[in-house]
């Protein structure tokens, strides 16, 4: 019953149910956005545990502030904005700290697809390259190419202007190309 409801109800309907006191309806929103937001956080932060913490805090903050979600039908964009800000904060806290490289469990779990060794090496090369982008470039690159957002959506989520975002994406691509071309040649 609840399941069917969660799968078919719009974001706005779920938000309204939660606001009316149906706490369990929030599970539908979590299930709907958890994977996509989780993917962004894992790639942006480069660490599974940090990403899950950021995501959990995001969902809890979104819940507590749900009454401030101006357009419940666009809950997804709203919660994405909270996550982007949360990842910036966590990234900033870690910025000066010595980097601790942890191989994500998810990556290890999927490493047996195709040619395991090649695939794993390719993933690690991408991770290595992503880590070397500036936080702003990494954010813009992931939103543009992985989340496939329009610049208009990216402006809404990041608060940055279009020309700044385009510049970040362009520089991120140039840097990724340069770094990964080196890897491919090696």
């Amino acid at each position, binding site marked *: 019953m609840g399941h069917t409801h969660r799968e078919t109800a719009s974001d706005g309907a779920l938000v309204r149910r939660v606001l009316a006191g149906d706490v369990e309806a929030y599970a539908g929103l979590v299930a709907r956005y958890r994977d996509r937001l989780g993917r962004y956080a894992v790639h942006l932060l480069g*660490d599974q*545990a*940090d990403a899950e*913490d950021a995501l959990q805090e995001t969902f809890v903050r979104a819940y507590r502030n749900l009454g401030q979600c101006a357009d419940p039908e666009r809950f997804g964009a709203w919660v994405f904005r909270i996550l982007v800000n949360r990842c910036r904060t966590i990234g900033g*806290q870690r910025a*000066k*700290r*010595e980097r*601790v490289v*942890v191989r994500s469990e998810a990556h290890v779990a999927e490493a047996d697809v195709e040619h395991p060794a090649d695939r794993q090496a390719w993933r690690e090369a991408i991770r290595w390259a992503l880590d070397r982008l500036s936080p702003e470039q990494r954010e813009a690159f992931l939103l543009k190419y992985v989340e496939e957002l329009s610049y208009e959506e990216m402006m809404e989520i990041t608060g940055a202007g279009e020309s700044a975002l385009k510049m970040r994406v362009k520089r991120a691509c140039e840097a990724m190309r340069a770094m990964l071309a080196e890897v491919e040649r090696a």
Partner: protein
Amino acid sequence: MNAIARFVALTLGIPLVAATAARAQDPRLERLPAEARASVSPVIDSARAIGLPTEPLVDRALEGASKNAPAPLIVQAVRRLAADMGRARDVLGRAAGQAELEAAVDALRAGAPPDVLVRLRDALGLRQLAVPLGVTADLTLLGVPADSAASLVIALARSVADSDLLALQRDVERSVALGAAPLAAASQLLGDAAPTGLEAGTARTPATPTTRRKP
């Protein structure tokens, strides 16, 4: 009463005040083996007589009972905790509340020298110390040198709420779990959050008198 006399009284379980001995025994202690109950009750009565909180002692005894520990082990654990709470109160002063004493005991047991706790108490003046002490204890348990842990907590506790202090502690735990060096992780995360950029191992002159309100 000097510390030695109190230590002897607590560890031997000598009732210090007649009225205390007459007080009804906590019914929860019925769960203890009879042999343990007979020895634990006087320790608790003695602690009460000198104004130490008794709840942690009852809890420790009940933990032993639930874990089916032998009576001598339960008695030893309760006596040791009573003695350590006495030490902690010597350090923090008579106004220290239960949570502050429990945190201080953990810090001392984790290897923090008493003067570190004194420094923290003096530096934070009128602030409730339970959370700053708890965070100091837990950072020390994680492997951050006690003096550095206290310095970081002092720097932060002047400007952030208890909930933020606890959140930062969790960040440090996570970093250490991921392989970061404890002192480096604590200095980085807590140092970043501190408004004045105090470095680990430095202390400030107390800004407020050492008198604190009773928790």
